[in-house]
């Protein structure tokens, strides 16, 4: 074997070892962060917040309104689609993710504990990745669970048999699955946006409010501007179409494969930006 080939092989082995080491370090960060995020004092409001749709459906069960009959499957599906869009995605997931992800770095700065990561032999880019995935796991677990319980509570008044019929024989199972996918992707998309906001701003809630406004007027935006949002790509997954009102500017929905690709591209771009940002970040805890 020539020296050149040997060197090349050694480099490959080193590179593989390095990759596996980075993977191990990222996993360690994810584990540490998940523990912190699930049991930290900052998560308590999010537990309560994620229970809001559950509480709404629970109260709807306690005090059913005769005018809003869930008897017809199409009506029931449309009502749930509206609640999922308006309450779960646009409110609970949006604000829940803003809290979870902006606190990944901002919370550490407030607690004066960011230096623990910065003093470890870890590439700062891996800290961004580890924190992001831990936030994603925590937010997706909370909000997907909340969506599942909401679905169950929503269909519960129709009775066990009708619910099972809807879920297993009709289109219910596919719809339910798509709601969970939307909730998960919302965590994925909004999460990365809020992670960057937490790195850029001392008070990320102000830009988060601006993004909320932008996402809320998405239905009024011309087609090319609609694409500069997360909600536009999530709409591609809607199992039940919902009306956006008489003033909405209707645009051709983006195909699902393109929506997934777009969300991935947005996430990668923002994670690269966050990595660039964190490389030059200083710890002095005075700002």
């Amino acid at each position: 074997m020539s020296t050149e080939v040997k060197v090349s092989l050694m480099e490959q082995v080193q590179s593989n070892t390095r990759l596996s080491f980075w993977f191990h370090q990222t996993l360690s960060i994810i584990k540490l962060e998940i523990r912190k995020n699930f049991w930290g004092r900052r998560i308590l409001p999010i537990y309560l917040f994620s229970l809001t749709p559950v509480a709404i459906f629970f109260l709807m069960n306690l005090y059913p309104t005769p005018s809003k009959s869930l008897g017809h499957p199409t009506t029931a599906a449309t009502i749930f689609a509206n609640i999922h869009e308006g309450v779960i995605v646009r409110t609970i997931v949006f604000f829940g993710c803003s809290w979870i992800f902006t606190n990944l770095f901002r919370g550490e700065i407030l607690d004066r504990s960011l230096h623990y990561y910065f003093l470890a032999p870890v590439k700062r880019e891996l800290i961004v990745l580890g924190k992001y995935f831990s936030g994603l796991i925590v937010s997706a677990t909370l909000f997907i669970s909340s969506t599942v319980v909401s679905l169950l509570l929503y269909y519960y008044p129709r009775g066990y048999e009708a619910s099972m019929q809807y879920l297993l024989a009709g289109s219910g199972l596919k719809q339910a699955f798509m709601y969970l996918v939307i909730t998960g992707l919302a965590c994925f998309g909004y999460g990365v946006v809020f992670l960057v906001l937490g790195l850029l701003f001392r008070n990320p809630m102000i830009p988060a409010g601006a993004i909320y406004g932008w996402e809320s007027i998405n239905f009024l935006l011309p087609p090319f501007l609609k694409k500069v949002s997360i909600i536009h790509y999530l709409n591609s997954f809607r199992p039940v179409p919902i009306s956006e009102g008489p003033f909405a500017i209707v645009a051709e929905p983006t195909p699902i494969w393109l929506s997934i690709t777009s969300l991935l591209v947005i996430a990668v771009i923002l994670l690269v930006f966050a990595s660039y940002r964190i490389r030059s970040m200083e710890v002095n805890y005075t700002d």
Partner: protein
Amino acid sequence: MNEIVFDNVSKFYGEILGVNKVNLTIAPGITSFVGSNGAGKTTLMNLMTGLLRPTRGKITVLGTATDNPEELFRKVGYCSQFDSFPARVTGRRLIDSFLSLHGYSKNRREEMTNKALERVNLLEAADRKVAGYSKGMRQRIRLAQSIAHSPSVLILDEPLNGLDPMVRAETIALFKQLAKEGLHLIISSHILHEVDMISDRVVFLKNGYLVAEGEVQGVRTEIENRPMQILVRCNQASKLVAKLFELNRIVEAKLQKDRGAEVGSVIIRTYDADAFYRDLSQIVVDSSIAVEVIRPMDDDLNAVYQYLIGSEGEGQS
């Protein structure tokens, strides 16, 4: 490669000066940063560990740039002044989590964690939550964390703060032991007599500028425009003073005679200590003066500090 090098390093916080034009090379052993609050001690330490980025200049730690944490923190341990810890963490878990980021296996981590806890005498409290620790224990757990991975460079920002005298003595002994093992120990402290006791070298900082560096005695010798004080106790103190003035070797002499005796003490101020010692030997031989004591009055760190840093440091020794 076996040194920490600051090459013309400046750090500004906006328009506020942190440190300016620092050129410094730190060899193995114990080096102490001395200076009043705001002198730039912590800034230098944070620059050395990459927590801050220099506005100008370059820092290398044993050949590694400070913007390469992956390599840097295999060699460096930093016990910072930040007195905050992740919530609900125990002492043991704090160190174990830190070592997990280094990539050590579970068994190895356990072994290294126990060793570090033992070195700071915190093994018994290891499974208690850090939030319940006393200030001294928190200081020690930070120290344990910084030495757990056996670094070659240990940076300690005010490491003796909050320690009771017993633990303080143990910690100083640990520092000396670590230095003996070939580590670079860089310490910042306000407690000058302790710095004096443990340091091989000192770096004096004032308002962000490095004003002097070297061994304490060496620094003192380099201060040429400040007269040095030397105490001489002998049997003919007045005669000695007169002879010294004749030779024009001293600038001031304070005579303190013992009551009813010819023996007395004289505190002499001179710009050229070496020449003074030579002349003194000659006078003693020529005049048959019996000298009991010759002692430099200001070779200790506090005196040097007063010379260099000024009255700001008075309350800190």
